[in-house]
C-alpha cells in the first residue's frame, strides 16, 4: 500500500484550515499596511548599482563613502561574494551623467577600481506607471480567470477558485512584507505565474469534482469532494514536486538576480497547492454547488 493509495479525510477539519487561512490572510493585510513592502526601484524610483571590486571590501565602507556625496538614503549589501555589492540609492539624479559621477567618486574615495556591472535608474514617473501596470496586470489576470472558469464550470467554481487565488496572492505579498525581500517587477511576474499555476491546480481538482457530480447526484457532497481531492492527490503532489525541484535548482544555482523571483515561485507553488486542496474545494460546500447535472432528456413521445 503506497502513500498515495491511502484515503485521507481532508474535509474533516475544513473549518480549522479555513480559520488558519483566514488568520494568514488577515495578518498579511496587517503586515502590508503596517510594515509595508520593501519596494525595489521599479516601484519606488531611484538607482540600483551592482558593483564588483577587484579586492574584497566592506559594505559599510562603501555606504559611508556614498553618503558623502548627498544621494539621499543609501543601502549597500553584499551580493554573492565579498567583492560584489548591491547599492540602492534613493536619488535618481537630475543630471544625465549621474551614474558616472558616482563611479568617479567611489574610485577616488576608496582608492580602488570598481566595475559597475548592472545599473538601474528609474524616475518617479516611470515607477508610478510600473506600479499601476503591475496592479492592473494582476487584476486583469484574476478577472480573465474568473470569466474562463465561469464559462467552463458553474459560478460556484468560478467564485471558489478566485477566492483561492486572491488568498494566494495576498499571502504571498504578506510573506514578502514579513521577510523583507525586495519587491520588484519580476516578483509581479512571479505572482502572475503563481496565479496561473494555482489555477491550474484548482482546475484539475474541480474537473474531477465535476466528473463525480455528473456520475452521482446522491452521494454526500463532503464525501464526493473528499474523494475528488484524494483521487487527484498523487498528481497534485507529484506535479508540485517536479515543479519545486526545477525551482529549487534556480534558487540555488541561478544567481543572485533570480533569487527573489524563484523564492516567490517556490512559496507560490506551496501556497497554491495548499489552497486548491484546503480553500478552493471546501468553498464549494459553503456555496452549495449544483447537484443536478443530468442533461434534460426529452421524454415526450
Amino acid at each position, binding site marked *: 500500500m503506497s502513500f498515495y493509495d491511502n484515503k485521507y479525510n481532508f474535509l474533516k477539519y475544513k473549518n480549522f484550515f479555513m480559520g488558519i487561512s483566514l488568520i494568514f490572510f488577515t495578518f498579511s493585510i496587517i503586515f502590508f499596511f503596517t510594515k509595508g513592502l520593501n519596494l525595489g526601484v521599479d516601484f519606488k524610483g531611484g538607482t540600483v548599482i*551592482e558593483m564588483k571590486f577587484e579586492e574584497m571590501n566592506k559594505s559599510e565602507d562603501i555606504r559611508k563613502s556614498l553618503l558623502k556625496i548627498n544621494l539621499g538614503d543609501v543601502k549597500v549589501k553584499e551580493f554573492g561574494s565579498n567583492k560584489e555589492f548591491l547599492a540602492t540609492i534613493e536619488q535618481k539624479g537630475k*543630471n*544625465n*551623467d549621474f*551614474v558616472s559621477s558616482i*563611479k568617479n567618486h567611489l574610485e577616488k574615495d576608496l582608492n580602488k577600481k570598481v*566595475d*559597475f*556591472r*548592472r*545599473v538601474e*535608474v*528609474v*524616475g518617479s*514617473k*516611470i515607477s508610478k506607471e*510600473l506600479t499601476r*501596470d*503591475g496592479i*492592473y*496586470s494582476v487584476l486583469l*489576470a484574476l478577472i*480573465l*480567470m474568473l470569466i474562463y472558469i465561469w464559462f*467552463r464550470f458553474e459560478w460556484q467554481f468560478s467564485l471558489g477558485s478566485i477566492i483561492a487565488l486572491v488568498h494566494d496572492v495576498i499571502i504571498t505579498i504578506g510573506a514578502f512584507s514579513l521577510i523583507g525581500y525586495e519587491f520588484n*517587477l*519580476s516578483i*509581479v*511576474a512571479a505572482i*502572475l*505565474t503563481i496565479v*496561473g499555476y494555482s*489555477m*491550474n491546480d484548482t*482546475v*484539475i481538482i474541480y*474537473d*474531477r469534482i465535476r*466528473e463525480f457530480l455528473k456520475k452521482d447526484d446522491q452521494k454526500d457532497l463532503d464525501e464526493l469532494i473528499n474523494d475528488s481531492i484524494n*483521487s*487527484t492527490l498523487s*498528481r497534485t503532489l*507529484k*506535479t508540485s514536486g*517536479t*515543479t*519545486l*525541484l*526545477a*525551482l*529549487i*535548482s*534556480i534558487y540555488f*544555482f*541561478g*544567481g543572485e*538576480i*533570480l533569487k527573489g*523571483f524563484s523564492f516567490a*515561485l517556490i512559496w507560490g507553488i506551496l501556497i497554491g497547492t495548499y489552497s486548491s486542496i484546503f480553500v478552493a474545494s471546501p468553498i464549494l460546500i459553503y456555496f452549495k454547488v449544483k447537484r443536478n447535472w443530468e442533461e434534460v432528456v426529452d421524454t415526450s413521445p
Partner: protein
Amino acid sequence: MLYFSRFKVFSIFLIFIFGVYFFIPNFLSLNNNFFFTDKKVNLGLDLQGGSYILLEIDSKPLIDQKIQAKSLDLRRELRKKNINYNNFIVGINSLSFNFNPNQRNLVNELLSDSSINSNIGTSGKELTISVDNDKVNIIFTNELLNLIKKNALEQSIEIVRNRIDELGTKEPNIITRGSDRILVELPGLKDPSEIKKLLGKTAKLTFRFLSNSNDENSLGVEILNSPKKDFKYNVEKRIIISGENLIDAQPGFDQLSNSSVVNFKLDNLGARKFALASKNNIGRNLAIVLDNEVISAPVIRDAIVTGNGQISGNFSSQESNELAILLRSGALPAPLNIIEERSVGPDLGKESIEKGVLSLLIGMLLVVLYMIYNYRIFGVFANISLFANLILIVSTLSIFGSTLTLPGIAGIILTVGMAVDSNVLIYERVKEELKIEKNNLIAFDTAYKKVLTTILDSNITTLIAAFVLYYMGSGPVKGFAITLAIGIISTFFTTYVFGRYLVSIYVKKNKENLIKI
C-alpha cells in the same frame, strides 16, 4: 487514441526535423553555412549586456516659445486693427486680455481669422477661444500641444540617431514610445556613460556679440555664464549665426595655443552673414554660446570670409571630439531627460547565461530522475518528450527571433518542471483505469480521452497568465511571458501527441502482458 496513421507519424517527425534544424545553429558559430540558417535566439540586453535608456522630451520650453510667439502675433494684429486692449496676460498655455465691449465685433472678426487660429489637420484648431463680456480667454488645444510634442519627437529621434551613429555602436534600436518618449536600446555596450552625456545636451550653438555698454540694439542683452571660469558675460540677444548654418565640424589641434579645438565649416548663407558681421565689427568680442553657456569669446581681428572657423575653449581632446559630434548631428529642439535606464555589463550577462544554463541542467536532471523513479519505463517516455520539448522551445524562439532574457531562462526551467504535469495526469489516470479495465489498449485509450479536457483547461489558465504578462510587462518580463507561452503549447504537443505515440508503441507490443506503472 492509440492509433496513429502513417501521415500523422510522418507529420510528428517532420516537426522534429524542423525543430532540430533550427535548434542546432544556436550552438554553432557557423557563418554563411550553406546548410543551416543563421537564425538564432535573440539574447536580451540582460544576457548579452547593453543598455536600455528611456528618454523623455521636456516639451515645456517649446510650449513656452509657442505661447510667446502667439502673444506677439496677437498683439501686433490687435494694434493693426486699432483695438484697445489691456490686462494682457500670458499664462502657462493660455492668453487673456480685456477689451472695450464697443469693439466686440472687431475682436470676434480678428479671433476667427485663420492666421490667428490656424487649423490642425482636417477638424482641429490650434486654440480654444472664449469671449465674455469684455474679456477674451485663449487656451491651447490638446491637438496643438500634441502637435508640438509630435514635431519635437520626430526631430529629436533623428538627432538622437545621428549622435549614436557617430559613436559607432552596433545595431542600436531607437524608437518612439508614446507621445513624448524615445527608447534607445544599445546591445553589447560596455559603458553607456558617454552616450548618456551626449544625449543630455541640446547642443544649441549660437554666435553673438558681447554687448557694448553704449549699444542701441533693440533685442536686449542677457548675462550668461562660462562653463570653466567663474566669469559672466553680457551677451547680446541678437543671433549672428546658429548651429543650423553649420555643415561640418571636426575635432582638431591648434599648434599655437597647444590645445584641442573644433574646426567648423559654414554653409553659404551662414558664411555670407558671418563675413558681413565680422567685417563690420572688427575689434569686438564674438561669444560662442552653447546651451546658454559662453564657451569662448574671441576678439575679431579680421573679416572672416571663407566660412571656416575654429572654436577653442581649453578643451581636452575628448571634449573637442564630443563637441564636434554634437555640432555635426544638430541641436535637439528640447532637452531630453533620462527617466529610466537599465544597463548590464557584458561580463554579468555572460555569468547570468552560465548560471541559467547550469540551473536548467540541474533542474532537468532532478526532474528526469524523479520521473524514472516514479514511473519506470513510462518515466523514460516522459523524459524523451521533455527533451523534445526543450528542442522545440528553443527552435521556436529561433524561428520567431524572440528575445531570450534571464527571466526567460527561468521560464524555460519552470516549463521543464510543469511539463511533466501532463504526463503525470495521464499516467495517474491510466493507473485508475487499469484498476477497472483489464484490457490494456482500452484502459490507455480511455485515460487519454478523459484527461484531455483537464489538460486543456489547466493549460489555458496558465496561458491566460502568460498573455497578461506579455501584454502588460516590459523587457525581461516579456521574455518570461514568451517562453512560458511557447513552453505551454510545445508541452501540449510533446506530451499529448508525441508522448502518446511513444506510449502507444509500447502498449501495442505489450497488449497481453500486465502493465505496471
